[in-house]
Structure formats: structure tokens, C-alpha cells
């Protein structure tokens, strides 16, 4: 990767353009005059008569409605734009660049046929408000994806409005509240969230006006049923769980938990961020979940796009089905382009290949875990699912006058060796958390290379942790001063 230091604004040269539009509207004709009044939100303003000159915007609109300040956008040629963004792209690492073992993010390979389908001209030009009889193909995509996701998860139906996982959580919690309110059960305003939950769970609950009650994990990393029992009561709307949890462990008491929560009148929400190991193996609906979201950009192979667009469809079981269309959390039909990709992926998987997806992801994670547990602390040594958590180095190299290598240092050193780093410092249960998720799309050779590099880094740390402290050495930039950036924020050019 090569450092490139320009911003597009710095390439601007007055008079250059990168667009191509017709010279003018052919319909323009000789000037004429019409009466224009200001929008009378204020009746006090007298009607204004202005000439409408051949539909010339500036001459026709009241001047107080027009922009006063100069619009300072870059003035660059098409070539300038293409080279600039190509240069920027070359400072980026994606799944297509290399192995991306980012825990809880499921960075699996993004098949290229999906991209071809998503930009298909017979779908790309559809206006979202077109009448049903003109969008039968688009509706068939939505219906087909709905049926496929229902089959995979054991839910009844999905809404595709949510654009991301957290957006799905919010939509799902709205459904939880709809359900209770419709039953006149308005006192249920608390939601139980395990201490190992993704940060979005409590945040989504708060946005939905719910009070958060935390349930502790036991020493085995699983929700402790005995700690859960006293929390249950007539004020509980439900529980949010991800299974396997963020430690990559299957919550084996889920059957018991589902019964307890249902018996107290609450619902179970499934955070689908960790669905990948269950793909083709276990269905959330069968475990007793009433509401769930999926991350199509994780489990169903659609690209993460540097942070989005994703898609977080929410599925419901029988109890919640009547309310599925109530929450309107995005403007039209959700991220339809992402749905096309996910549907293409599911059709490629089919009923045959789907059964291998989760097991192969689980196989890869356990393989790395077993291969590295001598060099990295493994707090919970049992079989994991798609991901697992190390708690820092076994030997961090700390000695008299020299600090040891931290998880951050290991992460940065990985960049030097051509790998993306795992998720670090999450979950919060472990101080040096290093969360690794390989997915099913990586070969044994790739996993072995990663394992070799992780061992090498552990050896470097033991020998001289400063090698890690200074990393990355080969990236376009070194470590930035983030504290200074937050203290004196520069947020625009």
C-alpha cells in the first residue's frame, strides 16, 4: 500500500469539469411573465410578481429563496476524479485483499455474481413507488428471499426495512413493544441484556425507550440461569440474546431460558450478528426466539462497503406476526440492492450447500483456536462456534523497564504481515480481548499462514515487545494520535 496524501479539494482547478450534460433544455422559448407569490406561510408578505424568463431558474424564482453563498465544490476533470479515488482505494484493505478475521463481523468472501445481479438494469431503474403490477419481478425477489430466510431461521416472515443490524434491533424491539401494547400489557418496559452482548443491544433498547437490565455471565461464559430467574417479572418485555454469544459459545441453556421468559410473559429477541455458525445447522425459531434480525452483510455474503449499506431484515414467529408491518424504520422498501445480492447467494448455496456453511465456519474457528492456544491465553477452552476470544499473549515480553505487548500491539503487528486484525477489546469481559472469526470461505493454507504469523508475533513479543509497540511498520501511515484528534476535532476540509 502506498501513501497518497491528496484530498479532492486540493486538486480543484477553477474552470475544470467532470460532468457531461446537455447544453440546455430544448423546450425553452421566448420570455413570458407569470405571477409568482411567495409561499404564504407568512400571510404578511405581499404577493410578488416576477417575470418567468424562458424557465430560467434564477430569473424566475424569488431571490430570497436562492442560495447566497458560493458553493465550494471541487472543480476537477473526470480523469482527476478516477485517479484520485483509485489512489485512495489503494490505501484500503478489503476481503478481496486478504484474510479479515474480524470477530463478530463475519467477513466472508463476497461473490461477484451478486454484484452483477445487484446492478442489473431491469431492477436498477425501478422507482420505489411504482404500482405493484409494474414491479412483479422486484416483489418476487422480496418474496423469494423472505421464504428462504424463513426456511433457514424457522421464523414465519421478515420485514426488509432495516438497513443494518442495529437498525434491525431497533425495529425488532419496536415489534416487541407493539406486541405487549396490543395486549394491554403496557407495564413491560424493561429488557434483559447479557453483559456479553454487542454494544448495539443496550443502545437499541434505550432508543426504543426500554430500560436495560443486565444479566451476568457465569464462569463458563454463558448466561447464568439462576441469575436470570430473579430478574423475570411482569415488567419484563423480553430478553435480547445472541447465540452463540460474543465469546463464540453456544448458550446451551437456551431451551430453559426460553421457557422461563415466555412463562413470565416476555419475548425472546435473537441478535443475528452471530448466525453464521448456525447457518444450515440450527434455526433460531426452533430455539424459541420470537423476533430476530439477520445481517445480510454478514451471514449472506453481501459486501460491507466500508461500513454499509447493509441490510438487517427482521423475522418474527407466530406471536408477533400480526404486527410485522407496523414499524416503518426506513423510507421505502429497505436496501433492495443488498437484498438482490443475498438472494443470489442463497440460490447459489441451495439446499445442498447451505448445510456445510455453518459447520465449515465452526471448523475454521476451532482450528485456529487449537493451533494458537499455547501462545495466546484462552480463557474458555471449550469447543467454540464461529469465533472465539483470546485474552492477550501468554508471554507479553514485559520485563524490567519495558512494558509488555498488548492486544493492540498484536493487532497492529498483524497489519505488517498482510492480515487484517481481529476485533480487539471486545467483548468487555476480558481486558485483552482478541476476538477471531475466520468464516468458511478461507482455505486451510490461509489459516495456516495466519497461525504461523500469530506465532511469529508471539515470539517477537517475547523477545522484544518494542517490535510490536512500533507497529505497523509497513502500512501507509503509522499509528495516529487519536487523543489529539478528539481534543481538537478537524472534521471537514
Amino acid at each position: 500500500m502506498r501513501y497518497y496524501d491528496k484530498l479532492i479539494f486540493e486538486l480543484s482547478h477553477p474552470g475544470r469539469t467532470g460532468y457531461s450534460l446537455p447544453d440546455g433544455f430544448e423546450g425553452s422559448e421566448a420570455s413570458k411573465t407569470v405571477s409568482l407569490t411567495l409561499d404564504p406561510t407568512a400571510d404578511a408578505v405581499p404577493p410578488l410578481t416576477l417575470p418567468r424568463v424562458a424557465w430560467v431558474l434564477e430569473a424566475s424564482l424569488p431571490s430570497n429563496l436562492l442560495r447566497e453563498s458560493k458553493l465550494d465544490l471541487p472543480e476537477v476533470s473526470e480523469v482527476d476524479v478516477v485517479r484520485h479515488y483509485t489512489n485512495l482505494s489503494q490505501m484500503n484493505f478489503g476481503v478481496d485483499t486478504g484474510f479479515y478475521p474480524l470477530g463478530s463481523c463475519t467477513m466472508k468472501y463476497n461473490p461477484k455474481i451478486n454484484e452483477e445481479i445487484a446492478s442489473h438494469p431491469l431492477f436498477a431503474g425501478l422507482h420505489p413507488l411504482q404500482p405493484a403490477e409494474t414491479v412483479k419481478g422486484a416483489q418476487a425477489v422480496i418474496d423469494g428471499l423472505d421464504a428462504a430466510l424463513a426456511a433457514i431461521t424457522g421464523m414465519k416472515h421478515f420485514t426488509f426495512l432495516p438497513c443494518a443490524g442495529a437498525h434491525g434491533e431497533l425495529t425488532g424491539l419496536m415489534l416487541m413493544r407493539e406486541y405487549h401494547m396490543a395486549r394491554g400489557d403496557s407495564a413491560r418496559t424493561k429488557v434483559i441484556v447479557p453483559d456479553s452482548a454487542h454494544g448495539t443491544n443496550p443502545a437499541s433498547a434505550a432508543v426504543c425507550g426500554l430500560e436495560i437490565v443486565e444479566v451476568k455471565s457465569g464462569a463458563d461464559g454463558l448466561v447464568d440461569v439462576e441469575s436470570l430467574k430473579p430478574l423475570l417479572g411482569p415488567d419484563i418485555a423480553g430478553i435480547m440474546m445472541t447465540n452463540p454469544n460474543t465469546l463464540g459459545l453456544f448458550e446451551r441453556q437456551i431451551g430453559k431460558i426460553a421457557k422461563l421468559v415466555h412463562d413470565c410473559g416476555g419475548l425472546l429477541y435473537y441478535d443475528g450478528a452471530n448466525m453464521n455458525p448456525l447457518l444450515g445447522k440450527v434455526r433460531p425459531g426452533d430455539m424459541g426466539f420470537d423476533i430476530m434480525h439477520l445481517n445480510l452483510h454478514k451471514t449472506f455474503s453481501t459486501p460491507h462497503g466500508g461500513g454499509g449499506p447493509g441490510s438487517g431484515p427482521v423475522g418474527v414467529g407466530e406471536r408477533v406476526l400480526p404486527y410485522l408491518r407496523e414499524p416503518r424504520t426506513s423510507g421505502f422498501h429497505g436496501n433492495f440492492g443488498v437484498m438482490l445480492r443475498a438472494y443470489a447467494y442463497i440460490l447459489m448455496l441451495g439446499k445442498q450447500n447451505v448445510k456445510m456453511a455453518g459447520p465449515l465456519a465452526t471448523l475454521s474457528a476451532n482450528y485456529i483456536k487449537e493451533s494458537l492456544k499455547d501462545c495466546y491465553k484462552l480463557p474458555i477452552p471449550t469447543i467454540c462456534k464461529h469465533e472465539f476470544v483470546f485474552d492477550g499473549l501468554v508471554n507479553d515480553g514485559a520485563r524490567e523497564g519495558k512494558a509488555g505487548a498488548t492486544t493492540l500491539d498484536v493487532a497492529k503487528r498483524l497489519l505488517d504481515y498482510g492480515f487484517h486484525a481481529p476485533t480487539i477489546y471486545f467483548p468487555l469481559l476480558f481486558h485483552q480481548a482478541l476476538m477471531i472469526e475466520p468464516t468458511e470461505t478461507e482455505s486451510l493454507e490461509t489459516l495456516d499462514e495466519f497461525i504461523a504469523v500469530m506465532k511469529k508475533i508471539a515470539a517477537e513479543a517475547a523477545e522484544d515487545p518494542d517490535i510490536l509497540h512500533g507497529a505497523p511498520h509497513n502500512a501507509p501511515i503509522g499509528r495516529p494520535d487519536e487523543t489529539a484528534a478528539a481534543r481538537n476535532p478537524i472534521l471537514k476540509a
Partner: protein
Amino acid sequence: MGNFAYFPHTEDDIRVMLDRIGVRSLDDLYSDVPADFIYNKEYDLPDALSEQEVRNFFEELGKKNVQLKVFAGQGAYDHYVPAVIPYITSRSEFLTAYTPYQCEISQGTLRYIFEWQSMICRLTGMDVANASMYDGPSAAAEALRMAVSCTRKRNKVVVSTKLMQNVLDVVKSYLKYPDVEVVYAWDVLEELGPDVAGVIVPSICRHGIIQDLSGVADAVHAAGALLIEYCDPSALAVLKTPAEWGADIAVGDGQSLGIPLCYGGPYVGFLACKSEYMRKLPGRIVGQASDKDGKRCFVLTLQAREQHIRREKATSNICSNQSLMALWVTVYLSLMGPEGLRKVNELSFAGAHYLYDELLKTGCFEEAFPGRPFLKEFCLKPLVPVDVLQQKLLDAGFFGALELDGYVTFCVTERRSKAEIDALVAVIKEIAL
């Protein structure tokens, strides 16, 4: 196994891996899952298709859609898409990256987000913008929540019913359950009071009329509330900016900046504000920094607001953004520049006004809001049955005349030629006969 393109494992690979782990079969990896929950049946899915079969499948579905010339807006606009954009956004270094957590190998993403934030500030006149929102309607809802948290002990928001329907619907859902009182009003100023935290108004109303917001900001501020303006960013090349109207927060949908219609998404929302509310912004924000050698670089910043640190006390639950669509818009604005974006508006304006005049001449319509200024979208009062009108247009390959509040709306962008407009008018003339 070993014959599916996305799974590289051979039987031998699997054996090697199982041996390392110390289990005998893949099923053993699920020994911690109670047997009742293992799904042993065949999944109710289609048989796996080959790539060519997938192509054919979508081709057939695509043919079931009717391709229409779009003369409608209401939040989704058929603007010209420069050829460059999809080539840039499909570069896999951008496409297949995650949120830029490891900034040293994510400078591409971080730089374009910084450029996006800068361009949104320049369009709106605001001081700070975030890294983007899911879409315009959800950005509007988040802005109202933000207004409540920016003001003390104020718990009511006033929402203009002049906003487009999809914005109103999303706002209603978002604010149904949190402890916020929502008042919907045609005239928002009538609802001001000591408990109002924020007021949201459109810069162009649902009927297409450009709003004169003179005095609105003063009145809202005098009542101690924040003014949020929902705007069409494309129109900001020529229309008075939210900052010039005195707004505190600007939101809207970036779709009008060259994003294809794509049946409603993905689009991208934006949210920008005055600097004093910076730390209340939801979502990701990119800031400029220096690395240890003093090199200019960019990082995710002000993260103390966010869910992964603050959990339930975060400013929002939003954790991602619509990054790639923000790149789409950033490339669009780079190509268009100030003159190109102005021209988009001038051509749309000319086409829309031409259509407006021609439609009136058919005798099938009356003016709905005589003399009110509009840009590319307008309403007329239909004098013929709307269903007949709509069906005639559909039969002739046009999508327009959406029914709205007893009127019909049309929209014309620079993509519509005079010949296309004339053809649409000719269809309507037939009804008049």
C-alpha cells in the same frame, strides 16, 4: 465436498483440521448444542444453481418488471448517473472493507468519508456532518432525538406535516416509544412553547413548493428550541441553505445526488449541525489526525458518543453508516462540481416548468397552488379521473401523476428530454379528447 466455489475445503483439509481440534466429525463441533435444536431435515430451499442459472433466474424476474420513464419524485429522483461512479464504488478495496477500525490500512475509506463530511457541510452551510445515516427519513428521526438531547428538560418535538409521507411515517415509528411527545402541525410556529426541544420543517414541501422560511428560525430560537431543516441536497446548489435560513441541524437524503432509484435503496442519509451540537451527533465521524511521523491521516473520532463505548447511554444505536453510498455521492459531487450541480437544477427546473405549462394546456388539470415557486416537482388538481390518467400513462410507458392529498404530482429531472415530455403530454391530450 470441494466442489462449491465459495468453500475451499477438500475432504483431506477437513480431516487435517478435525484431527488438530481432536474431534472426529463436523457434527462433533456441535456437541454443545442440545440435540433437539439441530436441524436434521432438508432445508426448504431451491436446489443449488450454477452461476449461469442464477443469471438466467434474475433475467427472467427482471423481465417481469415494467421499465417506465419516471416522472415522479416524492423522495426518489431519477437524476443522471455519471458512468465513472459505479466503476469507482465497485473497486473491491472499497466494496469489501469493513468499518475502518484499523485506520492504518483504511485510509481510503476514512479519506472519502472526510470528503463527504466536507461536501455535506459545504452544501448545507453547516459546521459538522457525520459519516452518513441509513436514509433521509431515518436521519430526520435521529435529528429530532438529537434535538431533545441538546436541550434541557424539553421533551416535545414539532413535526411539519408539509414533510413527505415517508419521512412522516419513519419519524412516527422512531418516536412512538421513547419518552418524547410529538406534535404534527401544518403551521409549526403555532405549536411552539417552553417544552419544545426541536422543530422540523422541509425546505421543499411534499407538494413541491419551495418554502420561504423567513422568520422561522428566529421564532423557533426565541422559544428555546432547535430548528431542523429537511432538504433535497441536489437543490442546495441553487436554493438558500439551511444555514442561511438559520437552521441548527440539516438532514435529508443523498439519493438525489446521482444514486440510482433501485426500487428504494440503498440510498444514504446525511445529518449535519452547528458546531455547538457536535458531541450530540449520532453515528460515525471521521477526523483529521497526524501519525507518529507527522503525516496527515484520518481516524474515526469523538467515539465517546457511540454505542460500543457508551452502550445504553450512547447518542444513538447506529453503529454503521451507508459508507459506500457516501462514496457514491462524493464521487458524484466531485464530477459535477458547482457548475454541474447548478446545471442539473436549471435543466430540471426548465423541464418541470415546461411540463407544468403543457399539462395545464391539455385542460385535464387546474393549478393547485397558483404562483407558488417550485423546482422539479409540482402538484396539479386533476379534472379527469386519476385512475384513468395513471393507467393511460402506464400503458404508454410513463410513471407519473401520483395521487397525493387530492392532487396529482409530477417530477421532471434533467434526464427527461423535451421529446419525452411532449410524448407524455400527447398521451394526456388523448384523455382530454
